[in-house]
């Protein structure tokens, strides 16, 4: 009932799921930082477009965004491959949620740190880069880990735009009658669960690394979490 060939199909699906999740995570992380800091900008010309981006992606459904980018966008603009469309949509989506995480964590760094940076005559960019952000990053990690899990779960949507990820493979094998429906979906759920556990573990290890010898940061992390 369950042969090696079937297992290979699953692994192909896992590989695609990991790829689209990784690309989206890179884009999403970069956007989270840029958009989170833009949200704190003193200039309205920066804050306002950023607000539109965040509210737009948080206010609509990821699946609708994906369908729009894949099926409607080609009619008025560029045609994207399923992988690009999937990674871009999921990345933009994650960025809009991550933006608030970054903003919240930066705001939570005690004011004294900013004041000390000013007193030491650090340029605003250096102040953010060497003083504020490293401390805020510790507070960002736990919610960031949650966002990665949400991203992984959201990646199942790409199966609907013909990308052959885990969910797509399972649906295909089900239609082919390769194994019982219950077996197939159970395996799919377990695969996603395993990847999610690996992500959680990775974030926890990173957290241990970032907080090493940083008692203040750890306290800030607890506050934000």
């Amino acid at each position, binding site marked *: 009932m369950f042969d090696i060939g079937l297992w290979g199909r699953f692994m192909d699906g896992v590989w695609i799921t990991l790829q689209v999740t990784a690309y989206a995570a890179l884009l999403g992380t970069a956007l989270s930082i840029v958009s989170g800091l833009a949200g704190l900008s003193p200039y309205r010309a920066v804050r306002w477009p950023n607000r539109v981006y965040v509210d737009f992606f948080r206010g609509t459904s990821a699946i609708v965004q994906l369908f729009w980018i894949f099926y*409607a966008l080609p009619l008025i603009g560029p045609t994207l491959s399923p992988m690009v469309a999937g990674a871009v949509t999921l990345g933009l989506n994650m960025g809009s949620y991550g933006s608030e995480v970054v903003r919240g964590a930066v705001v939570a760094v005690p004011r004294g740190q900013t004041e000390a940076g000013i007193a030491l005559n650090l340029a605003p960019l250096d102040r953010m880069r060497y003083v504020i952000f490293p401390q805020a990053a510790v507070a960002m990690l736990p919610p960031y880990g949650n966002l990665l899990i949400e991203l992984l*779960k959201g990646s*199942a949507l790409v199966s609907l735009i013909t990308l052959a990820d885990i969910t797509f493979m399972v649906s295909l094998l089900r239609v082919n009658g390769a194994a019982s429906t*219950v077996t197939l979906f159970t395996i799919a*759920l377990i695969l*996603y*669960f395993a990847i999610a556990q690996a992500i959680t573990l990775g974030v926890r290890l990173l957290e241990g690394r970032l907080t090493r010898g940083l008692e203040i940061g750890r306290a800030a992390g607890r506050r934000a979490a």
Partner: protein
Amino acid sequence: MIWNWEFAWDILPRLLDGLLVTVQATLMGITLAMVLGLFLAILRRSEYRIISWPTAWVVEFIRSTPLLVQLYFLYFAGPSFGLTLGALTTGVIGLGVHYATYTSEVYRAGIESVPRGQWEASTALNLAPSTTWGRVVLPQAIPVVIPALGNYLIAMFKDVPLLATITVLDVLGEARAVGTQYFRYLEPYTLAGLLFLAVSIPASILVRQLEVRLARRT
């Protein structure tokens, strides 16, 4: 192909029908999630590890796997367990169970915010567990978590279009049906996105105001 206003106007009623289904599914789903989530939160606090431990794992499992696959499981594999339900019912159960794992965490935070002294006082007064929960702990725990529940209501609303994949005619289902019928996808999908914004932005403003009001009260 460019935007056609006339076509957009013509298909709007169908999309609004879809929106009604989306709203119905959300309301039924959140009701299930709120009730089930409360039970999960209470079970997870059980002093018997044989109850609390499996609950924690089930919650973790459901939380970290895609809702889409869970819906497929219920819809396609359900009949093998003798569970033959309509698409909308299946969808509402899927949404409710998935979000119950989130609301259970919300309730847990609310329950933990109730001072220890309240539990001790209940023990001292020899109250039954049901009285302690029903009359002492929950009435203090739940108001605190209403805004968080509101946020999950909005999140669920945005997940309802997943039900379109199991043939429910929600906003997205209607948009897709219209698109396939007329071979025009730009207007239906754009309108679907706009309808989501039209509901979720005012809703999140309401939740934010509720948050502020509750924060002022305490």
